[in-house]
């Protein structure tokens, strides 16, 4: 019984959907739809609900459905909106009852029943059911009078005369002759009740004429007693008859078709009977000879009149030969399956796929018979997988069908006229996705009605039709489902979007100008954007588009918006067909395999040593220049290695480690991933290929591991983890904005306390040396065997370039190596005139240090100074000196101190980093200039105003308190004409241009000794000329 009720609920819900749909269709302007067909469809569904409910003893549902049916049967095509409104309300109530049929009797329905009875319609309906034989004796006038009188009161519908079957040869029927009819009348029902009270009945049963081919039937039902018993349990068989071709029974039993026909009284609908028993049934007719053809039309019950719409093979019972060759039962083509069972099936197919993959691998090299079997297994499995996936598919119409009602109600509420058009309802998609798609779709459609479609008068003023249109369509493209929501409303004002983006400081004006319309509209999907009231009013897009986006992205889909201001807008959702099996890229890091879902993947970049692209460092992160844009890089190996979310210390450690380790890996791959609209590059060792994998959820105890979404079993039987782009980006604590900003403009004020990274290394056994990373191009691992000797010079070929090897003990006062260790490193410095490398026995580490140097005895002889790192005295090397010594350049002689020999030229040097200050001071001091230093712009201004004029100002750009840009502007504002040279560790044409704009006369990269010295000389010369 429970099962039956469950089944009933599912059935009834479907019927309710049809009821709603047809009622809404009736509201459409007449002529656009076949109204009577709509009424019929609606009626059939209500009738089915009623029939089933009656059978299951759900009296409330039965009663309500009956009332609806009664009201509907009097409904004319193109009739009053009130009736439809009422029927919709009744439908909703019916839906409530059906949701919980067990407790349906507790829900009050008398109000709606009363409304339905008296309701909407201009006529009352009264059912007449009277025994004419009886009436004849009791009614004062003649029967004809009675009928005429009744007729005068209203319109008789569905009149029917019933009389008991009997052998007409024995005379006319003698039993009761019942006349049943519905009377549409404006008179109150009370007027009639007394007349017919005796026979008032609520029997909703109807007579159905059944016929069945017993031969066929007994075959399909294995015997006849079963079906007949069952039939008897649901219907009352009034008359039965068996017909078979006349044969000579003395010879054999009849061999032809045996037709049983019977007249049954039942509350079940004919279609229900057909479904259950495999009958072909005929439209109910008056009992065989009752009143011939005359009453035929009047006898048409509403239920069956609809049947006439369909061509129905006329079953002429009197001539069995005319029957269709086989009385085919309406074979059910669909079957309900529990979702649980489907899920289980899906899992099993997943497992089978794995077994298939394993056997493919295991028998890859086999020949002959096995190979054929495996290939067969392969194709069968693929097909099975496909079919199983499809079994989870449901038509998107299930979802779409609820929107017409929503749109209608919402439009009325807002005083708008909106029509929604549904297309592609038959397109199928995975049940899970379908279920979760409801909310976002609802949101988008509501937006369209609420904000998109204008008020009727506004529309007409704009020259549009007063009725707004929304098109909701689903299409199947490239293994994806596309859902379009298009409206012809006011569209989105791109200017308003721009203004909003500017006010939220999301993008600069220039960036916004460069953006395509589609990119611009995608800003609406950002959290916090659409919630702004202003945009809602101006652009016509409402609250919470970010929620839509999040929901769709959870389904692995995408959202895009397009719009023409004033004309309308369109939102396109792209969704996968299924989530259970996904295509992945299989990659490895440190020999571990990972599956990266292709939906996260935009492209793959191969980092080949010979290729020009390489990973650079910007601010606190590594970046890769991918066609003009900077892609922040996350190293999967580092993410895997570090359990905790990256701290700034982690980041600088990673930067340091990889700055020194450019050559360790010959080929790497950058997977360009997308997560929450941001892009980043995931660095992996190797790409193994793509594979369709079966997703297994992550073990619940491992849910806290945020960088994986699940696991899968690979062909070799090992488990591989599926990466989560979002989780990885989160774990790496990427500060995209900061990275990009720092890399694209040099305007970012660097934190003064930020330490500088240095590389620590050893050559001889005694000393530890250090070089700032900014001075190092890269570090190459070499074996001593790679060192070639030319006389007393040593060379190593790096990237095809013969590179001079510098041994520290040859050029400075340092301990020597007794013998070369088997593996050495070569530090390749930046800013050197000729290729050279410092040979190092051991790279100790990288360290972040505040570069405060103490004086050292060998200062000026290749050593800048010393500091203590990790309890060890560490010597800072002076690159310029080392290279000069190595290449045997003439020791720098103090140059001509300029034209005016009376005084040394005075230079103001501004840099916030003691180390750089020291290095540059030394470089320039060696040229014979007098150097005055300042630590930042403000400090420098004080010095400018305090002392005598300087001949040249050399300034760093990134400084605390007052940076180089501001300082330069201020200097020029004060009318100081002294030449100024900008020094920075960041290069780029943009910066150079900006430097000129701020008032600098030159722009140089720090620590390039020769260029710096040359530039200073030139500027000083120019200064002289000016004077």
């Amino acid at each position, binding site marked *: 019984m429970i099962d039956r009720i469950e089944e009933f609920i599912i059935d009834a819900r479907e019927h309710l959907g049809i009821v709603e749909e047809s009622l809404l269709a009736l509201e459409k302007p007449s002529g656009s739809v076949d109204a009577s067909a709509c009424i019929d469809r609606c009626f059939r569904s209500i009738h089915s609900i009623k029939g089933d409910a009656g059978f299951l003893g759900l009296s409330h549902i039965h009663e309500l459905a009956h009332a609806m049916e009664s009201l509907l049967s009097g409904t004319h095509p193109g009739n009053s909106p009130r009736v439809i409104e009422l029927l919709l309300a009744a439908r909703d109530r019916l839906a409530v009852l059906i949701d919980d049929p067990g407790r349906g009797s507790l829900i009050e329905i008398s109000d709606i029943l009363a409304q339905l009875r008296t309701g909407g319609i201009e006529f009352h309906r009264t059912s007449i059911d009277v025994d004419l034989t009886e009436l004849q004796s009791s009614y004062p006038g003649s029967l004809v009078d009675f009928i005429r009188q009744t007729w005068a009161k209203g319109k008789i519908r569905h009149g029917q005369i019933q009389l008991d079957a009997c052998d007409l040869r024995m005379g006319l029927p003698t039993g009761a002759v019942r006349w049943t009819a519905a009377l549409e009348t404006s008179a109150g029902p009370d007027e009639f009740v007394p007349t017919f009270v005796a026979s008032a009945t609520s029997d909703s049963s109807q007579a159905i004429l059944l016929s069945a081919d017993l031969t066929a039937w007994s075959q399909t039902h294995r015997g006849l007693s079963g079906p007949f018993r069952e039939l008897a349990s649901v219907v009352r068989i009034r008359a039965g008859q068996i017909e078979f071709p006349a044969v000579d029974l003395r010879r054999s039993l009849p061999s032809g078709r045996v037709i049983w026909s019977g007249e049954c009284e039942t509350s079940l609908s004919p279609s229900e009977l057909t479904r259950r028993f495999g009958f072909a049934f005929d439209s109910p007719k008056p009992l065989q000879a009752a009143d011939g053809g005359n009453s035929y039309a009047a006898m048409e019950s509403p239920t069956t009149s609809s049947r006439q719409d369909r061509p129905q093979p006329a079953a002429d019972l009197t001539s069995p030969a005319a029957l269709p060759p086989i009385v085919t039962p309406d074979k059910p083509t669909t079957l309900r399956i529990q979702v649980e069972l489907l899920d289980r099936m899906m899992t099993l197919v997943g497992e089978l796929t794995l077994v298939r993959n394993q056997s493919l691998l295991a028998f890859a090299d086999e020949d002959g018979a096995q190979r054929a079997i495996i290939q067969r297994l392969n194709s069968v499995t693929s097909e099975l997988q496909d079919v199983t996936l499809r079994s989870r598919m449901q038509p998107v119409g299930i979802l779409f069908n609820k929107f017409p009602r929503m749109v209608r109600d919402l439009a009325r509420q807002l005083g708008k006229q909106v029509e929604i058009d549904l297309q592609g309802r038959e397109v199928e998609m995975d049940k899970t996705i379908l279920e979760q798609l409801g909310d976002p779709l609802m949101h988008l459609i509501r937006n369209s009605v609420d904000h998109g479609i204008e008020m009727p008068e506004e529309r007409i003023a704009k020259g549009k039709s007063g009725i707004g249109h929304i098109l909701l369509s689903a299409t199947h493209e490239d293994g994806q489902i596309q859902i379009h929501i298009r409206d012809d409303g006011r569209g989105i004002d791109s200017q308003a979007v721009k203004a909003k983006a500017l006010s939220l400081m999301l993008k600069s004006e220039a960036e916004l100008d460069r953006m395509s319309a589609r990119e611009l509209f995608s800003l609406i999907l950002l959290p916090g954007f659409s919630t702004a009231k202003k945009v809602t009013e101006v652009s016509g897009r409402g609250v919470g588009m970010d929620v839509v986006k999040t929901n769709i992205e959870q389904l692995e889909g995408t959202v895009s918006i397009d719009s023409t201001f004033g004309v309308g807008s369109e939102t396109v959702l792209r969704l996968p067909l299924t989530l259970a099996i996904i295509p992945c890229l299989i990659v490895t890091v440190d020999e571990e395999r990972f599956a990266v879902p292709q939906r996260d993947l935009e492209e793959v970049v191969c980092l080949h040593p010979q290729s020009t692209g390489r990973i650079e460092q910007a601010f606190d992160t590594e970046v890769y220049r991918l066609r003009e844009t900077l892609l922040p890089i996350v190293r999967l190996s580092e993410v895997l290695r570090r359990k905790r979310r990256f701290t700034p210390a982690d980041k600088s450690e990673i930067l340091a480690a990889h700055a020194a380790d450019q050559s360790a890996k010959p080929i790497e791959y950058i997977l360009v991933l997308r997560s929450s609209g941001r892009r980043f590059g995931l660095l992996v060792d190797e790409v193994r290929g793509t594979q369709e994998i079966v997703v297994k959820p992550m073990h619940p105890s*491992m849910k806290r591991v945020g960088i994986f979404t699940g696991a899968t079993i690979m062909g070799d039987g090992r488990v591989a983890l599926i990466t989560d782009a979002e989780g990885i980006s989160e774990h790496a604590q990427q500060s995209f904005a900061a990275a990009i900003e720092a890399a694209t403009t040099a305007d970012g004020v660097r934190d003064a306390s930020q330490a500088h990274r240095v590389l620590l290394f050893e050559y001889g056994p005694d000393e530890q040396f250090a070089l700032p990373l900014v001075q190092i191009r890269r570090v190459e691992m070499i074996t001593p065997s790679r060192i070639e000797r030319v006389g007393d010079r040593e060379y190593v070929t790096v990237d095809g370039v013969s590179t001079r090897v510098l041994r520290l003990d040859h050029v400075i006062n340092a301990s020597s190596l007794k013998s070369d260790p088997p593996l050495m490193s070569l530090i390749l410095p930046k800013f050197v005139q000729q290729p050279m490398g410092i040979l190092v026995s051991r790279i100790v580490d990288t360290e972040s240090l505040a570069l405060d140097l103490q004086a050292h005895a060998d200062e000026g002889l290749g050593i800048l100074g010393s500091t203590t790192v990790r309890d060890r005295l560490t010597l800072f090397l002076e690159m310029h000196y080392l290279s000069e010594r190595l290449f045997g350049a003439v020791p720098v002689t103090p140059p001509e101190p300029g034209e005016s020999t009376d005084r040394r030229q005075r230079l103001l040097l501004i840099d916030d980093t003691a180390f750089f200050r020291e290095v540059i001071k030394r470089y320039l001091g060696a040229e014979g200039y007098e150097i005055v230093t300042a630590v930042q712009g403000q400090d420098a201004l004080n010095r400018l105003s305090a002392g005598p004029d300087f001949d040249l100002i050399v300034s760093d750009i990134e400084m605390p308190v007052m940076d180089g840009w501001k300082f330069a502007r201020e200097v020029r504002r004060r009318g100081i004409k002294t030449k100024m040279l900008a020094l920075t560790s960041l290069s780029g044409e943009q910066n150079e241009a900006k430097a000129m704009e701020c008032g600098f006369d030159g722009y140089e990269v720090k620590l390039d000794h020769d260029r710096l010295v040359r530039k200073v000389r030139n500027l000083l010369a120019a200064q002289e000329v000016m004077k």
Partner: protein
Amino acid sequence: MKENVTEMPRLFCTFRLEGHLFGVDMLDVKEVTTETRCTRIAHAPDEVLGLVNIRGHIYLTLDLRQLLGLSPAVVTDQTRLVLFKPVVGHPFGVLVDEISEVHAVTPDQIEVFSATEHSQVSSLLRRVDLIAAIGKLPEELLVVLNPRRFLTIVEQNFTVSA
């Protein structure tokens, strides 16, 4: 042949860790396998060895030694993976040094674990909260563990390390 129910011996699946005898209720054990090829899960606590595929099903593998506070497991020929039934928790198993026999232990041989009384056990293991009882076998002590606590401890260790 009437037997008092309380006198029925309990069956324990026993195994060795660092030579000591441990056991879990036989009814909790699904199977014992030689499969030890785990896929490491980065960021998981140390006692999580990773994921293993047992005939198409993925099990989480724990290093019971580390879970109990012993030194990490070293996989040898004797190493086995003890898989638990779903009633114990979401699919998981523990790696043990060596599998021993199924011991029938009568109720009178079983006593409640007490840190003071079983000092040799409590000095060996850091996590005594995983001990369900002590079985006094004639030749040695059987430390009966409660596998239902294993995953809870792992989840707790996440919080600790986070």
